[in-house]
């Protein structure tokens, strides 16, 4: 077993606390890397700076500022935890000779699970039900009536690895599956989940009872769902977002929810994260918001971390990086 001193150095934010790595994640990393926390690094940048070869980015921390990179001349790789890398300037880092990797595929099941969880919780008013059950002041246990999921139409915008899994889950509820994607999927993929392609996103918006967003954030998908799209949706429809907050025009969404242009929304992602405490979206009755927990299971988290480690070891050993993100 390599001595701690022989292990390559990796920069992390911190362990535990508000946005840090869970202990099991840090323990996995320590098997192969000597971890330097951002705070330790800042106390004496020249001590470790020249030896740090890898930066493990978790929940956008440590912040990837240019000033950081000037102090990390030996950096080979920014290994991101998660599949979305919209917060990383890949061309800029590449110009410094630093590669970028992400963790595709391993995040898909847990994210698809959360998408269905949000859909069901919203449709069947589970959160409200729990609040009523628990509230010491509740006197009237009046009926909360929700909307039927079985047999309803599920419209998936973004039918990648995650979208396909959402479709599979929806099918288990005998839902009718529509999807819109940059490219049509193969007939086998469509048949496997009983999905019908909507070349025109507007058609999907008009027909769906539940619209689920599972796209990458890009210039093309920023503000993809705005006033026009929301007004095309049924007044009984629900919007679910497990992509990125910026895919939705939040002001338009606020108005749509207030005016009941759509029935409800359930978001695991917002912009910013978190929303400021006085943001009007937080105070609507017909919205569910969870704090970006799409991949927050121990099992999935550790799969992500293992992938980060594999990418980092490849970088340190000069091998091809399995999940390198190349610029478009």
């Amino acid at each position: 077993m390599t001595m701690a001193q022989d292990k390559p150095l990796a920069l992390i934010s911190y362990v535990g606390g508000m946005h840090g790595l869970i202990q099991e994640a840090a323990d996995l990393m320590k098997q192969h890397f000597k971890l330097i926390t951002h705070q330790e690094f800042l106390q004496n940048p020249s001590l470790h700076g020249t030896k740090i070869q890898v930066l493990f980015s978790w929940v956008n921390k440590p912040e990837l500022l240019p000033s950081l990179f000037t102090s990390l001349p030996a950096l080979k790789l920014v290994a991101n935890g998660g599949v979305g890398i919209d917060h990383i300037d890949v061309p800029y880092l590449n110009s410094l000779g630093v590669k970028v990797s992400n963790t595709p595929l391993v995040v898909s099941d847990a994210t698809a699970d959360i998408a269905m969880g949000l859909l069901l919780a919203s449709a069947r008013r589970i959160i409200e039900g729990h609040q009523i059950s628990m509230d010491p002041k509740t006197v009237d246990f009046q009926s909360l009536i929700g909307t039927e999921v079985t047999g309803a139409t599920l419209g998936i915008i973004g039918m990648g690895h995650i979208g396909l899994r959402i479709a599979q889950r929806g099918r288990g509820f005998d839902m009718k599956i529509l999807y819109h994607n940059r490219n049509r999927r193969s007939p086998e993929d469509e048949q496997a989940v009983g999905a019908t392609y909507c070349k025109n996103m507007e058609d999907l918006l008009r027909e769906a009872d539940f619209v689920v967003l599972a796209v990458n954030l890009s210039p093309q998908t920023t503000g993809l769902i705005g006033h026009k799209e929301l007004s095309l949706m049924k007044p009984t429809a629900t919007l679910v977002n497990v992509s990125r907050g910026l895919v939705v025009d939040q002001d338009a969404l606020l108005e749509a929810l207030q005016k009941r242009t759509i029935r409800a929304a359930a978001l695991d992602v917002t912009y910013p994260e978190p929303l400021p405490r006085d943001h009007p979206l937080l105070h609507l009755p017909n919205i569910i918001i969870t704090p970006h927990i799409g991949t927050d299971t121990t099992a999935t988290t550790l799969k992500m971390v293992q992938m980060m480690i594999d990418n980092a070891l490849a970088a340190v050993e000069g091998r091809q990086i399995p999940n390198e993100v190349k610029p478009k």
Partner: protein
Amino acid sequence: MAADKPWALISEVGENGYFEELADIMREHFQIMPLSDFLQSPALHGPKIQVLFIWKFYPEPKPSLLAELPSLKVVCSAGTGTDHLDIPYINNLGLKIANTPHVVSDATADFAMGLLLASARKMFEGQQIARGPEMVIIPQSLMGVEVSGSTLGIIGMGEIGHKIAQRGKGFDMKILYHNRSRRSAEDEAAVGATYCENLDDLLKLSDFVMLSLRFHTDCTGLIGHRELSLMKPTAILVNISRGLLVDQDALIHALQSGIIQAAALDVTHPEPLPRGHPLLSLPNALITPHMGINTTTTAKKIMHRMVNNAVAAVKGLPIPDEVKPQ
């Protein structure tokens, strides 16, 4: 003519009873009398009533009420459960009983999966943090349990249990089930379910234990101290059947001491739980007020079925969903 339509006794139209669309379905075939009106003059109104519609257990078919309904032909109860009805007593009065099987199954199965996911992924805590006055996250407290690929143990593989299995399969869950009798090979294959003759085996192996069986009094306390201690400490119990299936004191102890991870209950005993009940203050108990069938679509299906049964009873025809004595 409205005046020719037979009379039905109901709880009430409104928030605590039938919403307007449901009342309209009844009015197609019946004149409806809310209980409050009836009680103002039972002697006057009683003889008119041929049908008693029971929705969410109201009005309660107590002997004192039934005694005031000399023309009553049928008691039509919403939902599949009949444990709230004294079937022999009601039959002995010469009355028929009907419930509404089948139409509740999809909505109940959907709700069961919704509870499972909400509990597993700590969505209630997540929402509180996302919308609370202080945005503080401690990663470990929001770490959930993986649903995809986990083991779902279904106790009670009737129509509802089978539909839950189908939904679980969509999440690539491994399905185990325990039932009074084994289901056919086709039924098992359709949802990839494995029979556990021994309930203990299911309890030991499952990540999620789902109670979806029909309640009989001999199933009271089916899940008690012993059963809970057989379960994995990471396991979650979901109950959409009847509160009495679970020994609630044993459950409280199990949740407090980490014997199981969490519980999600649409049903308790009593309903609702009295304010201050220990279950209500446990962070790992997700409780909803018996809303498993609460969708507009399903409520209307139930209502149509109840009316159908009632119309048959009034005409002296065979009742489609008659509940026969055991």
